[in-house]
């Protein structure tokens, strides 16, 4: 009985989601509930949102999951790894607010995040 109760109690925590909005180049908006712990790239790929290629599979070894992060969010999500900016040099039309979506991990803190997908990745 305890285990069943425990399951009910913990399940919502394990499955906590954050709302991520992807805006494609033609301004179509997709708002998706993405599980905490996944990356913004995985959220897009698993939900078939067009425009994110992620050729390397999320290893920061290409620049084909490139997104623009809305300014107010950009400063709130720090870059965790040194090499991301180097990789972004090779992205299609990098801007000041460019990020690799495989390097943004979904959590409660980024609930409501909006990212814009560039017209192409390669």
């Amino acid at each position, binding site marked *: 009985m305890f285990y069943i109760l425990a399951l009910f109690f913990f399940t919502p925590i394990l499955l906590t989601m954050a709302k991520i909005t992807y805006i494609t180049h033609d301004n179509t908006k997709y708002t998706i509930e993405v599980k905490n712990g996944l990356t913004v790239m995985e959220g897009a790929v698993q939900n078939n949102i067009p425009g994110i*290629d992620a*050729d390397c*599979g999320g290893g920061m070894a290409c620049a084909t999951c490139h997104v623009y992060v809305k300014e107010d969010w950009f400063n709130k999500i720090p870059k965790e790894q040194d090499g991301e900016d180097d990789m972004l*040099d*090779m992205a*299609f*039309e*990098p801007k*000041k607010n460019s990020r690799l979506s495989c390097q943004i991990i979904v959590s409660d803190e980024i609930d409501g995040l909006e990212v814009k997908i560039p017209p192409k990745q*390669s």
Partner: protein
Amino acid sequence: MNKTDALIIGAGPTGLFTAHQLKLIGLDCEIVDNLDKIGGQCIELYPDKPIYDIPAVPECTGEELTNNLISQLKPFDIKFHLSERVEEVKKENTNWLVKTSNGNTFLTPNVIIAGGVGSFEPRKFVPKGCEQFENKSLFYSVKDKSIFNGKTVSIFGGGDSALDWAIELSKNCKINLIHRRDEFRAAQATVDKMQELVKSGKINLFTKYQMANAHGDQTLESIDIKHDNNEIKNLKSDYVLGFFGLIMQLGPIADWGLNLNKKTIEVDTEKFETNQKGIYAVGDICNYPGKLKLILSGFHEGALAARACFKLARPSEKYRFEFTTTSSNLLKRLGKKE
């Protein structure tokens, strides 16, 4: 026309080890790669970066891994066709007829695609005005540096290629170096050398700028570069060089009638065969439930695909499993036994 038991597309780690496995079991093979050197992504993207997850190799760089794989192929005679891209794969009776960009043709019962994420192509400038000058005044690599003597050359990029060429060409040309941010990803010594040349006026450095447009009638006259704050500068330029790294394009592989899933090829996990008999896909480019894009997975996939090739290349013989520790057949092929 080259006849071979198996043609491997891609000379990265997976392609190289697949060649080893084919030769070991007594089959011939040849390798085609679009790059001008052996090693694939390991050599093009991370020659100096250490890899820590190759079994029994605690640490090695992309370049070391490639060199070790090449030396593992030493006992065998394998023909490499570099700087060549496979353009066409067509069925001809029980064989595949393969044509490359250099006009080479191969007739083979087995084609193994070990193509990573496709072939490497330079990342190009985005503004539309740039295309008309491509290969005339605007290049993504340098073939003959003497054409730049005494000219004004605008170089874009922040990596080793951009900085190396800026330093080299500053001896005989007027150089503008343009990069989208203040940090450079080139080796520190190269960055220091570049900064020195900026101080002494040999290189004009523009950071936080990107290409906005290219002007000129027949030949290039000037370019516009745009700052992060939208300010535009016009720079007189005879030549433009862009070094934004390489991107990977699936290219002609998309037209060979294979079952594709995004940019990967669907295979079975027994032979790593595609939906076309005699065409296999191994390494990063293949896809099956549970696929991991690790080098070690590519080795496993190549070993199995090689065994599958045996059946089509030697239909009247039976493949027998042997160990290199004990089989005199294998030891002979490896040159360890007379």
